[in-house]
């Protein structure tokens, strides 16, 4: 079963790449949406939720790297059999695959909706979605090493256009929007923090990347850098959204992140629409997340069911996910799925790995170095 994931000599990835992989895997379209839900939970204290949620996410990253380091030559599905037994590990793996499939479909649906609203209203949805799906499948078919290198190459495209916007936006932040602090106490802030930790889908890549790393233990610091880069990005976006829009406007907006960027202006400067600077990071973020999910679903199915048709499975999964978007009747349903999706994320990204770690430690299970 493991031969599909046994890396060749040249497939080994430098552990430092974990930072780029985690950042590119997690950041996606949701960055434009999550200020709303966080504000619904914690009002103007949403920034505190992000900070506390960042601590949970950092602890989760430490847990995942520690678990991966315990079984450095195997991925989660492989060592789950040692910890949970065959039937248990099969069910867990099935759960993960279902979780990723739903997420992949939602990602495609979000991409399609945003594309229709902001860029190409008259273009048939299938055209850009299929281009995304086929490109992603093509990249994924070359394996995780190609994916990691692509993520590393794309990282500057994600960060560089965004930084000047953040710097410019701080000029317009109305700090009084953050007052009063903790007016509703700590409980809503903590709820927001748990919600925040639960939207970091993709963090579980650590458990599948580890067999390809030259030294898993050395991946801890880069992984923490990666997750905290995500936290920093979300914190910046949250602060700017609250500071520019105010909590009351955020609550009624579908994509407060997009609205926030639309509010920026530089008097006397000929450029009016700064949100266009977000186009490249947006496409990059969505594409890399789609690639990652397509990889996890395809290789998960191949590993679980011993499928011999690697490329066929990858293309089938990617195109099926596109077709799956037609099962979601409208965008309200996408939003509803997004709203509750943090619960399965908490289960699959933190809770199950935690139980696996405890189980492995309890039963003295350890992989070969």
């Amino acid at each position, binding site marked *: 079963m493991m031969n599909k994931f046994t890396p060749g000599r040249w497939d080994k990835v430098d552990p430092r790449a974990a930072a780029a992989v985690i950042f590119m895997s997690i950041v996606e379209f949701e960055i434009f949406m999550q200020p709303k839900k966080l504000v619904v939970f914690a009002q103007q204290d949403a920034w505190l939720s992000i900070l506390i949620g960042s601590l949970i996410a950092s602890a989760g990253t430490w847990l995942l790297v520690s678990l991966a380091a315990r079984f450095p030559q195997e991925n989660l599905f492989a060592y789950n059999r040692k910890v949970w037994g065959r039937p248990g590990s099969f069910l867990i793996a099935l759960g993960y695959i279902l979780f990723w499939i739903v997420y992949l479909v939602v990602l495609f649906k979000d991409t399609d909706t945003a594309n229709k609203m902001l860029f190409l209203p008259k273009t048939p949805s299938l055209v850009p979605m299929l*281009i995304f799906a086929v490109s992603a499948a093509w990249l994924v078919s070359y394996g995780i090493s190609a994916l990691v290198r692509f993520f590393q190459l794309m990282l500057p495209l994600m960060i560089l256009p965004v930084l000047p916007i953040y710097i410019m936006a701080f000029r317009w932040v109305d700090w009084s929007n953050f007052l009063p602090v903790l007016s509703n106490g700590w409980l809503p802030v903590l709820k927001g923090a748990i919600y925040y930790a639960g939207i970091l889908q993709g963090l579980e890549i650590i458990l599948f990347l580890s067999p390809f790393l030259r030294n898993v233990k050395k991946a801890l610091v880069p992984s923490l850098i990666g997750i905290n880069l995500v936290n920093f990005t979300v914190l910046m976006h949250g602060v700017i959204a609250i500071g520019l829009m105010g909590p009351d406007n955020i609550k009624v907006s579908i994509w407060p992140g997009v609205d926030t960027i639309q509010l920026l202006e530089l008097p006397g400067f000929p450029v009016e629409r700064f949100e266009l600077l977000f186009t490249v990071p947006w496409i990059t973020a969505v594409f890399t997340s789609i690639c990652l999910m397509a990889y996890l679903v395809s290789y998960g199915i191949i590993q679980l069911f011993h499928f011999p048709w690697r490329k066929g499975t990858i293309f089938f999964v990617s195109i099926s996910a596109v077709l799956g978007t037609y099962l979601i009747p409208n965008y309200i349903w996408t939003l509803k799925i997004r709203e509750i999706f943090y619960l399965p994320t908490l289960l699959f990204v933190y809770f199950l790995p935690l139980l696996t770690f405890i189980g492995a430690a309890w039963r003295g299970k350890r992989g070969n170095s």
Partner: protein
Amino acid sequence: MKKMVLALFLLLAIPFTGCWDIRDVSNRAYITAIGIDKGQETIGNYRITFEIINPAKLRSGSNPATTIETVDGASIGQAIEKLQTRIPQTVSLDHFRVLLLGEEQGKEDFRDIISYFEKNPQVALRFKLGFVQHGRAEDILNCKPRCEKSISDEYVAMTQLEKDFSLARDRSFNQFVADLRGSEGDGFITRVTGIEENKMMLYHGGAVLKNWRLTGWLSEEETQAANWLLGKGSTTVICKKGDSTYTYGAEKKTVHIIPQVAEDKISFTVKAKISGNVIEQKGHPMDLSNPKNVAELERAISQVIGEQVKQALDKSQNIFAVDYLGLGKALHKEDPNFFKTLDWRKIFPFVSIKVSVETTINTFGLTE
């Protein structure tokens, strides 16, 4: 070979993805300003005036480089659809920058207007908003621009470059809507008027909204007084001292609204610290090289500013009974739980407010 074909296909596919939406920039009619007036119920709820960039006029250098069209409609969306029947290019709101509301329309629920603009992905919500006193938005949009290519350009330039101009209340649409949402529909925004039979547009004074509807107007002076509490920028103050009249340019101000709650009795202290320069003097001059005289003048200016602040508070509490000056916001920040227990709209007109102003003169120009 297969890979090469697939790569070529993907590369070719990407630029053709948006062919369905292809529209040359010259085939778009960019709406830059919208004026909404109350329409007759028989032909629609709104009478909407659009200012549209006219590429032909722009090329020929004529002024204004825009076309004005007025359409009746039951909703803004319907009016835009009707507008398309008169314009050969595709109507677009990508460069929409100014929204004006006529006085009669202003008295209607403002939430009905918000919806269209918040829902439309083409609209950047930072556009400027103004309420037209003694007239219709249509008349203002038909004014001839004097310094720019269009009325909307002129309006935006006024608000952007003189952002903290004290005789008006500059708020973008998004900021104003946030103000209203945070105060159950009470707010204060710029007034626009037309003078000389609408040959010229003035951006001055303020419009006060109560419960999402226009309830009254503030003059230039009243807006300036209100801006002592709300604005940030420079303000000019006229102060009489003995035989002389001094013009003081306030440059920096720090205003604190301090709420006090004692035995459920609410009071406020407004503390303002202002620094600026003497910029003009008329009549018999005081010797401003003497620190005693400067201190006396500072006291006199403080008194004038204090009176202006009191007038602003009086107008807000007793004339409109609308808290557009942010006292409730200050109390909410101080004690949010207590604030939630109050019917602030009812209490606000009766709370006592003390005003304390401290002014400093930094320089008196190039002469003493």
